[in-house]
C-alpha cells in the first residue's frame, strides 16, 4: 500500500449538493459507502436485546465492537457477538451497518497490531478502529504508539480508523501513513462533555479539508452531535450516551435525528454570527432615530 492517503471522500462534492436530494450525500471512506453518519458502540447496554433495539433505532453506519476481553485470554464468543453478528448480517443485506472492531484496552503499538490481526480473522473485516491508550485515567490516546501501529496496519492492508487527539500534526501524519480517516476525540471517553476544544477541531477541519474526520468519544447529548455535524465533521461515534440512557432506544433515535439535522444544516450553510441584532422584518414605519 502506498504512503499516500487513499480516502476518496471529496468535500467539494458535498458543497455542491445543496440542490440535490439528501440521498446523494453519501459518506464514502476508502472507496466504500458508509450507510450512516451516526456510529454506535456495542457495550454497556442493559442486555443484548436492548442493544439491538437501540441499533435498530439509531441506524448506525458502523457498530464498534471490542474484541479484547478483560481476561485477555483468547477471542471466543460466549454468544454475545452471535447476537450482534446476526443483527449485522440482516443489516448488511440491506446495505446498512457494518462492524468496526476496535483495539480497546491496548497500550502499545505491538499489542494493537496483534489484536487487529486477531479481529480481522474473527470479524472477517479489514476495518479497524485503532485505539492505543496512553493514560488509563483519561483514556487519552498515545499519539506515538498510535502512529506506529497505524503505519504497520496500513502496510498490512487494514482500513485503519485511528482514535486520536485533535492535534493537527498527528492527524496529518496519520493520513500520511494511509489512514482513510481520522477520529479525534470531542472529550475524554464517557465524559459526555461534547466538543471541548472547538477552536482546535476547527483548525483540523479547515486545514484537512479533504480528509474524513469523525468525532469519536465524549459526546453526551444529541445537540453536541448535531453541533459536530454542523461544523462540517463527517460522522460521530458514541456509546455511553445511548447505552447509559434510561431509555437507550429513544436516545439512539434522538441521536440519529440530531446527526441528520446537523448534516443537513452543514450542507444548507450556516449563517455567520453577528455582533448586532438584525430584525428579520424591516420596520419601515419606525425609523431608527425614533428609538430610545
Amino acid at each position, binding site marked *: 500500500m502506498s504512503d499516500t492517503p487513499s480516502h476518496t471522500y471529496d468535500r467539494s462534492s458535498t458543497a455542491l449538493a445543496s440542490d440535490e436530494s439528501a440521498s446523494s450525500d453519501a459518506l464514502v471512506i476508502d472507496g466504500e459507502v458508509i450507510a450512516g453518519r451516526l456510529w454506535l458502540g456495542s457495550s454497556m447496554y*442493559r*442486555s*443484548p*436485546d*436492548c442493544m*439491538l433495539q437501540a441499533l435498530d433505532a439509531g441506524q448506525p453506519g458502523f457498530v464498534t465492537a471490542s474484541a479484547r*476481553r*478483560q*481476561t*485477555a*485470554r*483468547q477471542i*471466543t464468543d*460466549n*454468544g*454475545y457477538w*452471535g*447476537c450482534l453478528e446476526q443483527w449485522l448480517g440482516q443489516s448488511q443485506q440491506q446495505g446498512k451497518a457494518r462492524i468496526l472492531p476496535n483495539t480497546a484496552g491496548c497500550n502499545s503499538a505491538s499489542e494493537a497490531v496483534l489484536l487487529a490481526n486477531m479481529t480481522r480473522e474473527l470479524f472477517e473485516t479489514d476495518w479497524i478502529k485503532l485505539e492505543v491508550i496512553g493514560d488509563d485515567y483519561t483514556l487519552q490516546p498515545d499519539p506515538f504508539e498510535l502512529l506506529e501501529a497505524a503505519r504497520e496496519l496500513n502496510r498490512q492492508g487494514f482500513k485503519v480508523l485511528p482514535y486520536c487527539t485533535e492535534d493537527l500534526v498527528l492527524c496529518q501524519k496519520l493520513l500520511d501513513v494511509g489512514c482513510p480517516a481520522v477520529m479525534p476525540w470531542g472529550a475524554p471517553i*464517557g465524559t*459526555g462533555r461534547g466538543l471541548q476544544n472547538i477552536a482546535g477541531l476547527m483548525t483540523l477541519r479547515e486545514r484537512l479539508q479533504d480528509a474524513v474526520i469523525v468525532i469519536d468519544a465524549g459526546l453526551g447529548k444529541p445537540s453536541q452531535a448535531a453541533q459536530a455535524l454542523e461544523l462540517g465533521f463527517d460522522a460521530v461515534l458514541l456509546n455511553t450516551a445511548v447505552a*447509559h440512557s*434510561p*431509555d437507550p432506544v429513544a436516545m439512539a433515535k434522538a441521536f440519529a435525528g440530531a446527526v441528520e439535522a446537523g448534516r443537513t444544516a452543514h450542507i444548507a450553510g450556516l449563517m455567520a454570527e453577528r455582533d448586532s441584532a438584525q430584525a428579520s422584518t424591516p420596520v419601515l414605519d419606525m425609523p431608527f432615530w425614533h428609538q430610545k
Partner: protein
Amino acid sequence: MATMHIAIAGGGLMGSLIAWQLARSGKRVTVLEKCDQHSPAAAGYTAAAMVAPYSERPISDNDVFRLGQRSLALWPQLIADLNQDSGERHRFHQNGSLLVAHPADRAEMEDLERHLTRHGLEGDSAIERLGRQRIGELEPELKNRFDQGLWMSTEGHLDNRPLLQMLHRTIVSLGGEVCYGQMVDTDDRVWKANGQRINADFYLDTRGVGAQPDMPQLRGVRGEVLWIQTSEVRISRPVRLLHPRYRLYLVPKGESRYILGATELESDDRSPVTVRSALELLSALYTLSPRFSEASILEMSSNLRPALPHHRPEIVVDGNVVSVNGLFRHGYLLAPALLERLAAQVEWFDISAQGNRSA
C-alpha cells in the same frame, strides 16, 4: 396413588429451592447435580447473594424489578420455613444496602437518580438520600469518606454457601435424594444421568449455563469475586461503590469475612481470576477504606452467570419437562418469586399441600 416423582437437573439455588419446596409438599424428588458435593460450582455458590431490586433497577427489566420486590417480601417466610424443616438457624439479613460514590464520580449518583425517577421511584419510602453525617452513622467505617449516598433500606442478602448446603440437607431429611457427580443429558426428551436413564413423572431443568446444549440462546457471562477477611474494619451491610467503569460491591458474610465483587465480562471463560480484575476489585476496596489494606485475601473465584438475550428469567413448559433459566446476575433476587410463578403456570407444580408430607 403412587407419590409423584420429580427429577431436577441442577442443584444450584433454583433447583435446590424447587426440590425443597416439592419435598416439603410430599413429592418425591431427585436432584441431579453435576458437581462433587465438596466442590460446588453453581453460580449461586459464587454469588454475593444480594436481594437488591432498587440498587439493580438501572440495569433491570421491569419484570426483573417486580419479581425482585416480590422476592424481598418472600425470603423471610422461606427462611423461617427452612429453619423449621431443618431445625437449623439461618438468617435473611435485611438492613438495606448503601450506595456511595466518590466526589469525582458524582455523575454516577446523578445517573442513578435519573434512572430511579424514570421508573417512578424518586419518592419511594425504601430509598433514603444520605449526607456525609448519616453515612457515618450507618457505617462508621465510611465516616467522612463520602459526601452523598443512597440507602436502599429494605434490601437484603443471604449467606448463600451455608444456605445451599442447608437446602441439600433438608431435601434429604424430607425424604428426597441429592445425587452428586451426575451429568444430565436431555437428548430426545429422554433424561439420562451419567448415561443411565432417569424415570420420573416430571422433569425440571435448572442447570443454568449447563443447559446450553439445549438452549442455544443462553450465554455465560463471566463474573469474578474475591473473599477477604479483616477484623480491623467493620461494615454491617452491603456497600456498593458507583463508578463509571466498574460495578463494585462489598457484602459482609459473617466472621469478619466479606465478598468483593464483581466483574461482568462477555466471556464464557471459566479460568481463574485475572490480575487485572483483582487489581480493579482491590483498588475499589482500598478507596472504600484504606484500612482494608491489611485484610487477608481468602479466595478468588470466577463463575458464569446464565443469561438470555433479554436478561429476563424464563420458564419454559414442554410436556412434562419444565425449564427455568436465565436468572443472570439475579439468582437470589428472582428465585422465590419464580417459585410462585412456577406454581401459577405449571399445573403439577403444587407446593401448597404441606400437610401431605410422607417423611
